[in-house]
Structure formats: C-alpha cells, structure tokens
C-alpha cells in the first residue's frame, strides 16, 4: 500500500511543478465561478420579479427553491466540465513515463501492476478532489444567504466524485495504451463524450439495444443524484466502470511482460 501511495504522491506533486495542475485548477474555478454566478443572479432577479408581482396583486409570492434553480444546474454544469477536464488530468499519467523512459524504472522495480495503476489513478483523483474543494465557497454562499436542502448537495457531490472517478479510470486506461500525450488526451475525450451522449441512441434504436446503450450513458445515472435521489443501481454503474477501467489498465501494463 505504501508503494501505491509513493507512486500517487509523486505523480500528484508533479502536477504542481508543471503548469498542468495550475491551469486545470484555474480554468475549472473560472468556469464553475461563472456558472454559479450566472444562475445565482438569474435566481435573484426572478425572485425579485415574483416579489414585485405578488406585491402588486397583493398575494403570496410563489416559493422559489434554490436547490432547483441554482444548485442542481450547478452540479450539472460541473459534471460537464469534469468531462472536459478529466482527459487533461489523465493524459500524462502513464504516457509521460513511457516517453521519458521512467517506465523502465517503474516496471523493473518490485512493484505490481495493480500498485502502479492505483497510484496513477489516485494521483488524478487527488487533483480532482482539490478542484472540487474549490467549489465549496459556492455552497457556503448558498447556505449563508438561503436555506438549501443539504441532501441533494451531498448526493450531488457523491455523484460528481463517482462520475469523475469513472472518467479518470477510463482516462488512465487510454494513457496506458500510447506514449503520445495528445493522442491520449484526445482519445480519452472522444471516449468520454461518446459515453456521455450514448443515450441519444435510445431514440434512434428503440427496443433492447436502445435501452442498453441508454443505460451506458454516464450522465443518465447522474440525473437522479443531482436531484437528491441515491439509487444503488447508479452507484453500482459507476463503480463497475471504475473497476473495469482500472482492471483493463492493469492488464495493459502487464501485457508488456507477456510472451509474444
């Protein structure tokens, strides 16, 4: 386990000696800040409008729900940004080692492929965790000026973590297959986008094929969670993606040692 941590910690730190860590973090915060701000302003304006209308008609203003108007769209936007940023996080993980030759050190050390895979995955996951921490001020603002429900916020974060972990696992897999970072980045982006939009196939191919494809959609399983509904089916879907991605990465690393 300590070996896994050593690999993860070295990789995590290397994000912050290259521009990647800072660029990804800064852009993520810029985008999330903008999304939060715009939906919050929209929410405030509408509330004022309803209040004025209610005042003129001397009735009660309709209740506006911050969860529904601000927080749920915010989580949804976060999930989309995650899709775009994960390839940037994962593209270097194993590519870089292959390109610079340090993979030779890693693979000739008494380290198992599982430890390498987990270490790399955890490093990317750690960076995503730091990114998510950057969204907490938005939640603090919501709680200071309003009374949102805590439940959907917690399930929303859980959903984001699961989505990100699944995407990171797949990105790590792609990174293990090539030594070119651009190829790794774009290929993982394409793969993730396909998994994101695969539910469109439901309308095109009705019947069992369509529903299977729809089930594979990464974003479908997030919808309930962003509303505060925690369904074990969704959790299991993400966990199985994570396990599949990491297992395939492990096998890809191992395959270098297989007799040809």
């Amino acid at each position, binding site marked *: 386990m300590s*070996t896994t941590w*050593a690999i993860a910690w070295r990789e995590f730190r*290397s994000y912050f000696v290259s521009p990647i860590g800072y660029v990804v973090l800064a852009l993520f915060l810029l985008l999330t800040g903008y999304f939060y701000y715009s939906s919050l302003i929209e929410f405030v304006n509408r509330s004022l409008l309803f209040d004025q209308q209610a005042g003129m008609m001397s009735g009660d203003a309709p209740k506006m729900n911050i969860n529904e108007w601000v927080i749920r769209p915010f989580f949804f936007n976060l999930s989309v940004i995650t899709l775009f940023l994960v390839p940037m996080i994962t593209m270097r993980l194993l590519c870089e080692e292959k390109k610079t030759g340090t993979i030779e050190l890693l693979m000739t050390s*008494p380290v198992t492929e599982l430890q390498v895979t987990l270490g790399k995955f955890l490093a990317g996951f750690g960076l995503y965790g730091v990114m998510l921490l950057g969204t907490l001020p938005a939640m603090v603002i919501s709680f200071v000026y309003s009374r949102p429900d805590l439940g959907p916020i917690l399930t929303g974060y859980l959903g984001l973590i699961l989505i990100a972990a699944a995407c990171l696992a797949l990105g790590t897999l792609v990174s293990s297959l090539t030594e070119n970072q651009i190829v790794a980045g774009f290929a993982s982006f394409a793969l993730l986008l396909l998994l994101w939009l695969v539910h469109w196939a439901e309308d095109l191919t009705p019947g069992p094929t369509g529903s299977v494809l729809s089930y594979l959609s990464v974003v479908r399983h997030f919808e309930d969670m962003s509303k505060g509904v925690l369904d074990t089916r969704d959790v299991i879907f993400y966990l199985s993606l994570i396990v599949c991605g990491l297992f395939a990465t492990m096998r890809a690393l191992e395959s270098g040692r297989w007799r040809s």
Partner: protein
Amino acid sequence: MIEVTHLTKAYGPTTAIGDLSFTAQRGEVLGFLGPNGAGKTTTMRILTGFLPPTSGTARVAGFDVVEDSLAVRRRIGYLPENVPLYPEMTVEGYLSYVAALKRLPRARRRQRSEEVVKQCGLEGVERTIVKKLSKGFRQRVGLAQALLHDPEVLIFDEPTVGLDPRQIIEVRQLIRSLAGTHTIVLSTHILPEVEQVCDRVVILSRGRVIAEDTPESLSQRLRGATSIRLRLRGANEADLEALRSVPGVRGLRVSGQRDGVVLVEVEGEPSAEIAEPLARAAVERGLGLRELAPYGMSLEDVFLQLTTGEEDGRGA
C-alpha cells in the same frame, strides 16, 4: 547467479537476439561488448523482467525472469541506457521515491540514501533538481538509484556513457569495489573499460554470442603471435627478404614509407623470440634501425576482427 539458456527475442520478423546462452557467477563482473544494435540492451531488459523473451529462459538468483518476475526484480538494481529520472524532482526526493518503489524498509531509507550519495559522489547536490544537473551527475544519480536497495545483482547499461574521463575512472572504481559482493552485468562499447572492469566478457554481434572469455585470454587467443614494428632507414627489397628469412618470422609487410624510412610490421610464430634476431639482421645489413617495438593486438583489434569477420560471413 545469472543463467541464460537459448534466449531468443524477436520483434516480428527481426531477431534482436538469437539463441543466447551465457552464465555469470556470483560476485563476477560480466561485460557485454558489442556494436550498437547487437542486442545488449534487449538482453538486459529481459534479465530485468522489462521485456519477455520470445523463447528460452533466463534465471536470475535462481528465479525465472518470466515466472518469478517480482522475485527477480526484488534482487536486481538496474541502470537503463536512458537514465530514468524525473526532471522536476530533487536528488533527495528522487532517491526517497525509488526507496519506496524498491520496498526498502522505512527505517533504512535515510541511511541507505546517504550511503549511495557518498558512494556515487553526489554530496552537495542532494537538494538540486535533476533538471539542473549535468549529464555526468545524472548518470551518477542513475547509479545511486540502482544501488539504493543493495541488490545482489546489478545490471548497468552503458554506465560510463556521457561522463568525463575522471568520472569514468571513478565509476569504474566504484564498479570494481562492488564486485565480489555483487554480481554485475554491464554493457559497453568502450573496450578498455572491459579490460579494466570485467572478469569475463561476452562479445555480442547481431544478437549472437561470438566469443566468451576473460579479457586477457580473449586478446591472447586472437593475438596468437607476437608482432613487432620496425622503422628502417634505407631498406630495399633485398633487405626485407633477408629479414623475412630470420628464423621465427611468419610474415612481414610494409605498412608505410616516408623520407626513406620504411615502416615494417613483422609477425612472428607464437612464443618465438624474434626481436633480437631482427635487430641483429638489420644492423648486419647496414640498415638504420630507428625503432623496434613489440605491439600486441588490443582488445579493440580483437573486437573489430570478430565483429567485422562476422559481417563478412566468415566468422572468427
């Protein structure tokens, strides 16, 4: 300690190494000598479990490199041709990372790290980031990395490449000092290195072993005869014929001529003493004897003869 039998590695249709067999005893320094592309790196990568062989077996410390890869990897220190460094890390940080990878017990990490820093002459640069180090220092960090967990078997792929002459001598001394307690396999294309450092040498060419012996007997075997170089003033064809008829002389050839001074290379029968009779004959015929020097065939000549002979298809 290392047993390689009928090892073959093919990349598609091209054979990198074919039917390679050799052994290295405990405590021995074994040198791989060969031109670029001879299969030195491929062989080392197989020994370290980085690449699988296509067929044949390799055992390190009694463990098969394919079946017991992890056990082999625990017992080897490997310096690849491209030193595996992370440019953004400090030497200290890098060594502590490698210590974790090599499963060095936490309590011993600091002590071992200090030891290898001293051994490899890295004092004073522990806190420097690798990117800022010169090629020579990087090479030494690579060596330090290989020695860190004090493995029984050390595998060095061109350990002195990129070093300046003084550093080369230091690294060779370091390798010699490790011999005896460690089994070392190193590759090189620098011939004096083999003569100075290795107990035994395996000459590879095109993925095959074309000679395996001690450096001394290798050059002796090919030298076979003693050779003498003469510089003679005023020698004509008749004089050369006379020298050729000196007992013990097997052959004679003129290799150069300048200002009336002829450079002659004389090859004698094995173990025949020809220097004195030659000098006497030259003086008797009234030739100006400017120089008389024995010259042995260096390992370099042996190497060239072996590897080029192979390419001509004649073998050696």
